[in-house]
């Protein structure tokens, strides 16, 4: 019988520091591997275990993909000790991605908080690389301070094609590639005029969801026009172990991306 926990061993092609606390690992992609915004892989390091990590690279790049990892536990800690040329196990990709295709018919509003920019980055690259196919796109990105900003070297390229706004909760006055606003991400709604009738993609911590969804509802967004990615503890990634259960959904298999229409009646979803 096919073993769904079997991992594939892939080589680390490149390791770069990203922001003050994360690293981008470029991994060799197995045959047929596709990157979709919001999907994740289980990274397996024998002896340490597995951890679900979002894919964050440009989907048009073939044969390799990127994950951006902050050292936060045993597996990510061990990963940070690894060197270029060494191998890690992967299985996946898993999960339901952001419905990026909607952006071909509707304007998009991408709202990211902190590390939440990682799962949205494949969508941003997809739009930037195929700009003429998509309608108008805005990004609202909130981070704690300049040191937490991710993917800074991409901003010049992104802001030429997308209306991109950053806000910092507690700025330290460090120079950044583009001007940043001050305050939490919902403050951007006061200063930036939204495009007409957009679909929103959200990725960030639960507290951000509470405030952003409240704001979006005030602006008369339909529940079915708000998509958000949930974070949960995962062990199997296959909809069995129940660690990631939310209501009757499994975040690993039915999500991690859900519409607000699916989640709004579930206690504890955000």
């Amino acid at each position, binding site marked *: 019988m096919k073993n769904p926990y079997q991992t594939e061993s892939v080589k680390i092609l490149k390791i770069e520091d990203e922001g003050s606390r994360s690293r981008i690992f470029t991994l060799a992609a197995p045959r047929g591997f596709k990157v979709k915004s919001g999907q994740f892989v289980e990274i397996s390091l*024998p002896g340490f275990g597995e*951890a679900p990590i979002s894919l964050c690279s440009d989907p048009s790049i073939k044969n390799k993909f990127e994950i951006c990892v902050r050292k936060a536990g045993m597996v*990510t800690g061990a990963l940070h000790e690894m060197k270029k040329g060494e191998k890690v196990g992967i299985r996946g990709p898993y999960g339901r991605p952001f419905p990026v295709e909607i952006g071909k018919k509707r304007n998009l509003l991408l709202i990211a908080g902190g590390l939440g920019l990682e799962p949205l980055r494949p969508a941003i690259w997809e739009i930037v690389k195929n700009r003429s196919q998509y309608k108008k796109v805005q990004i609202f990105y909130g981070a704690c301070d300049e040191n937490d900003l991710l993917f800074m070297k991409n901003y010049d390229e992104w802001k030429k094609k997308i209306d991109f706004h950053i806000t910092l909760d507690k700025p330290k006055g460090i120079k950044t590639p583009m001007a940043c606003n001050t305050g939490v991400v919902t403050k951007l709604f006061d200063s930036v005029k939204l495009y007409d009738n957009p679909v929103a993609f959200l990725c960030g911590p639960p507290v951000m969801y509470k405030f952003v969804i409240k704001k979006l509802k005030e602006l008369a967004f339909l529940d079915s026009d708000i998509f958000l990615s949930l974070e*949960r*503890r995962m*062990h199997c990634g296959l909809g069995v172990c*129940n660690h990631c259960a939310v209501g009757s959904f499994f975040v690993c298999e039915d999500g991690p991306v859900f519409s607000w229409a699916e989640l709004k009646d579930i*206690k504890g979803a955000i």
Partner: protein
Amino acid sequence: MTHGELQKFIGFLMKQGWKVFAPEKQPDEVRYVEVEDAAKVKLITEPPLHSFKRFLVPPEETLFEYKKDKMAEVKEAERQVIFGINPVDLKAVVMLNQIFERDPWYQEKMRRTLIIGQSLIPENVEQNIFQTEYEENILEHLQFDIFLEVQGKNYFVYTGSEEGQKVLEDFGYKNYEHIAYAGPIKEEGLDPIMVKYRDALRKNYKKEIWEKDLGTRCIECGKCTLICPTCFCFDIKDQPDLVGGGGVRKRTWGACFYNDFSEVAGGHKFLRTTAERIHFWYYHKFVRIPDQIQIMGCVGCGRCAKVCPVGINIFKVLAKL
């Protein structure tokens, strides 16, 4: 089949190399033990304290061994007979078979397991909270290899699989009837008890049950999850050798009451309070599993109430939903 023939049949299976586990009345409780003397095997109405669960979903199992980045295949399971499962617990077998249908370790165990069911069901509500009866047509919705219907001092023998037929034929017993499994759901449609609790729990969140009552009484010991024949949540973790770079990846029973069940990197927990955790346990059994596979995630054996140190009784909780 007479009781003497049944004992001979068990002895035959043991000689054929099967490990046979059967319930035995011990001074305090009925427990599963490995049979050493087939002449001592009896059918007991009192269900064993621990169900069959650990024979199919063990508390700890090795998923694979690793040496550097090489991983071992699924190992062949030992041949085992689980004897004497009553129809209430057989419902849990049906449920686990669906939950683990794509799981190679579970399926390997099932492939090497002979399940022998029997018709003695306790009548008291403590051990049969949904008052399941041994009635016509019940067998076609249960999964087993052989089933013994108690008729006075003798048994009528049914088979539910080719493997069951084969071992009976090899033993030399032909007077059995085969029952084709018709799936878990009865012809009349969804189980009305399942629908009632599912809808009640999904529609209403009653603070007085979860926060005021159970949330203040439950001590999060997790005994109910260990004893429940349908609790199957698991953790996956690695256990490295101290030297040599090898080790094993293991799957162990998990419990949604424990502190780290919902904890993510950075320390945030999505199930923070006792009330959230016990609600999650009930929601899994009475809403999530029904939504997933249209059968109840509780068979009504009452074991959780029996072992609960603070007297939480599932029967009484359901009545308040």
